[in-house]
């Protein structure tokens, strides 16, 4: 048994526990600074990850995998957590008590995500998903005195528990028909079970559970409410980390565990992708609350990402990784701004952005770039990501005409999204009734995070070469 493969996860858990302990000896007024400690710690772990090789190795009898894909996502989650921790420090004054727990829970959720990146077995899949979801139950309802936050927590709890139940039922059915939990071993018997309705039902239910994590139709209902009610750092972590964890699991299950089934489900995946894109974009149009808007936009983005899954090709898988990379910097950049500007839960209306370009040009520029990137306009990361996804789908067009419908719907979605993303930009620069023009102070660490997000968006958009190669290499371990 090679425990050294787990060194990153162990380090994150130790950091989280250490934080809880340090909390006991830290005076109240200094507790928020523990977030910086946590962020630095995560940064060190990220640096450590570059000493590991992406060579495929496994532990716990093939349950835990360490390969290029796992390492890619572990780094992805570490970067996300680092920025989210810096955001949480800014958010600390809005949390009445227990800020250290907030930091520690972020680290535990991070652990879950990192395990998810390595999961090669339904047991580990379930455990990591639960670790993520259960910590998020607490994180979403952390502002205990705010009704909206509690509502978000309750909704996430009920729907999360429901989807977990679906998933565990599905796993049971899969285990019942195959007698195995390990992805590689299931892949060996799956071709014979393609006609077995119970097995297919099991796989479908697992997909429902994972669909909940990525907020895909038909289990997307929770996203807008939870995004709106949760504290901004939680929403950011949910939007980026949790979604990416869902996608890495989806990739592994669909392409490594049941490739034989996936091959038959092309049309299903295309249809889910189409409906998710339409739902997210159409519902985002009338939204006035910025976090809620981003909730719907996150559904739409799940739909775009599913295009890469539906393409069933290396190009599609690699496009997902690239798109997620761009999505990380874009969405985190947007949420940092939200976290700093919208200090009241009630005041998250888009109109609160009025005059932002005078209050803080840096924040205004960041949010503008984030919206432009989400809308898929060059030269930012979002454009190249969408380009890769569309290319992957068009490439398969000859095999199934439904792909052309998918392309058409994606175009439709992108055009709609211009409307609401530009609505945000418009509110920043061209609102007439800016009442509050007090400058917004931006602390140094958060400034660094903002610059990192902006640099990430521009770098991925202008020099995509390195990232494309990295993504291509990472998906090489997927078998289909």
């Amino acid at each position, binding site marked *: 048994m090679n425990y050294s493969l787990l060194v990153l996860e162990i380090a994150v858990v130790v950091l989280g526990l250490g934080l809880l302990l340090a909390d006991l000896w830290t005076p109240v007024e200094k507790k928020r600074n523990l977030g910086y400690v946590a962020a630095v710690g995560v940064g060190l772990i990220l640096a450590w990850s570059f000493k590991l090789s992406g060579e495929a190795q496994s532990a716990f009898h093939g349950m835990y995998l360490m390969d290029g894909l796992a390492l890619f996502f572990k780094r992805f989650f570490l970067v996300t957590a680092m920025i989210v921790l810096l955001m949480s420090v800014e958010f600390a004054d809005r949390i009445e008590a227990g800020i250290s727990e907030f930091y520690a829970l972020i680290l535990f959720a991070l652990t879950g995500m990192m395990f998810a990146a390595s999961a090669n077995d339904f047991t580990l899949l379930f455990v990591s998903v639960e670790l993520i979801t259960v910590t998020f139950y607490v994180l979403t309802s952390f502002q205990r005195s705010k009704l909206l936050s509690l509502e978000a927590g309750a909704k996430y709890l009920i729907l999360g528990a429901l989807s977990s139940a679906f998933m565990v039922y599905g796993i049971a059915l899969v285990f019942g028909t195959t007698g195995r939990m390990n992805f590689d071993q299931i892949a060996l018997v799956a071709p014979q079970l393609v006609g077995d309705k119970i097995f297919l039902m099991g796989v479908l239910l697992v997909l429902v559970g994972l669909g909940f994590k990525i907020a895909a139709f038909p289990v997307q209902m929770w996203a807008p409410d939870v995004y709106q009610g949760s504290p901004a750092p939680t929403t950011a972590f949910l939007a980026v980390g949790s979604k990416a964890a869902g996608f890495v699991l989806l990739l592994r299950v669909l392409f490594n565990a049941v490739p034989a089934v996936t091959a038959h489900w092309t049309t299903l995946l295309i249809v889910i992708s189409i409906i998710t894109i339409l739902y997210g974009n159409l519902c985002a149009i009338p939204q006035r609350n910025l976090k809620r808007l981003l909730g719907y936009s996150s559904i739409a983005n799940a739909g775009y990402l599913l295009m890469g899954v539906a393409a069933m090709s290396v190009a599609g898988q690699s496009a997902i990784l690239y798109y997620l990379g761009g999505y990380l910097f874009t969405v985190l950049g947007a949420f940092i701004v939200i976290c700093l500007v919208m200090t009241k839960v009630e005041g998250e209306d888009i109109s609160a952005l009025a005059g932002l370009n005078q209050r803080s040009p840096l924040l205004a520029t960041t949010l503008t770039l984030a919206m432009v990137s989400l809308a898929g306009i060059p030269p930012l990361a979002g454009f190249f990501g969408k380009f890769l996804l569309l290319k992957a789908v068009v490439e398969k*067009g000859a095999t199934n005409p439904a792909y052309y419908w998918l392309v058409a719907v994606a*175009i439709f979605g992108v*055009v709609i999204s*211009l409307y609401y993303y530009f609505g945000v930009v418009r509110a920043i620069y061209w609102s007439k009734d800016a009442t509050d023009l007090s400058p917004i102070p931006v602390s140094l660490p958060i400034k660094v995070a903002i610059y990192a997000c902006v640099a990430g968006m521009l770098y991925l958009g202008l020099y995509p*070469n390195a990232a494309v190669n990295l993504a291509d290499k990472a998906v090489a371990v997927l078998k289909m």
Partner: protein
Amino acid sequence: MSPLTYIILWPLVAALLLCLVPRNYGFLMRLVALAVTLLTMILAVKMFWQYDSAPAGPNGIKFEQLVPWVSSLGISYHVGVDGLNVGLILMGSIVAFAAACCGWEIRNREKEFYILLLVMTGGILAAFASLDLFLFYFAHELALVPTFIMIGVWGRGENKNYATFQITLYLSVGALIALIGLIALYLQFPAAIRTFDVVELTKQVQKNPISLHGQNLVFPLLLFGFGILISLWPFHTWAPLGYGSAPTATAMLHAGVLKKFGLYGLLRIALPLLPQATHNWVNVIAWLCLGNILYCGLVALRQKNLNWLIGYSSVAHMGFVFLGIASLNVIGISGAVLVMIAHGFLAALSFGLSGYLYHTTGTLEMNKLGGLLRKLPFLGTAMIMAMFAGCGLPGFANFAGEVTVFFGAWQKYQLITGIAVWAALVIGAVYMLRAIRDIWHGPLPEKWAALAESSWPFRKVPYLVLLVSLLVFGFFPRLLTEKITPSAQKIVDLATVPTATPVVAAKAALVAEAKP
């Protein structure tokens, strides 16, 4: 480094620098924008001048530069000019300078305006210089998005929001359809040799033409994607509305330059790479172009607002370019490129002058104006000249272009050309002359009695520059044609279908299908 790279980079770098200037230095913004567009124009004129003597690369491309960008996908920063785009780049940079001059009407948020104007300029010029499909689209999108923002923010009239909405919708859809077409085109090649490089792709299709099925898939995507961008009938409704609401500089740049992107795309990409499909579709293009020339000409007759009239006449002029393309011979295609360049100057001039008029009188409703030539002699003279150019009066570059198109098209489409000539000469003359009569002649309404032109001489510069360009190329069209013709010849060689192979293959496939 190629001078093209400087031409593209200066506006973009200046836009970046302006981001750092505090917003209350409006004068500085304007100065920088003027200086940079002037510099770009000088560089472009210099390049145009040196074009004949410059050494050509192995593919007949001059001032070429190639830097790998995303090597795993075969994307590169590849720019260069041949006869097809050297004139367009010259025209684009001159119009950009004129548009920057006309930016004086913008009094609020000058910083954002000039940044967007410079980004738009850089994007447009990069799109025309590009020899890479990806860069081509990337640059166009970079120029397109500022257009929407500019119309939305600095636009005029009560229809502003609706116009922004419609132009954004139409042009985004058009651009995305074209993007899908470009991606599909890229995917028609075997994985080992896939590249976005147009020169490379052109070489490839000469050896192995794209399959007929592939051609028939890609061509309509490109035709209708680009067609929406060019305001091909019946996808033209955004154009008059959008131009009617756009600020002057934006309308000049978009109608003059950016709209030619789609035409250039058809000439550079669709015709040479998809000869068989081109062959199948030219008749459709020829009939659709009548929609532009005849239908939009007739609609222009009914307009009461000057900007709408110019908008419709500009849509009508696009029909001539389509007719030239549909003729598929050297004369027709050379004529099409000439019309593109001439119309670029003309559209920019017309919209520039109507913007000036709007700011002097506050209205463009033609029945409210009249007899203004006495009060605004320069403006009136310039606009009358522009309108004559629009009717195709000899001496202006438009005449040279249109007549060449008609010569080219006559060989193939006698009927359509006949209708087009009639529409151009009669309908065009009627609405243009009527507009001249309504605005500039007749009794002067009481309320315009106190009107006077600005005494500031600089205000006349952009109009003079554009008029001089129209006249220079009108009297010496050879300056352009001698550059265009060899490139047009190349396109025609590639687009004519001596390559019987796809046809034979298709027939063979049909035969094979027939026999079960």
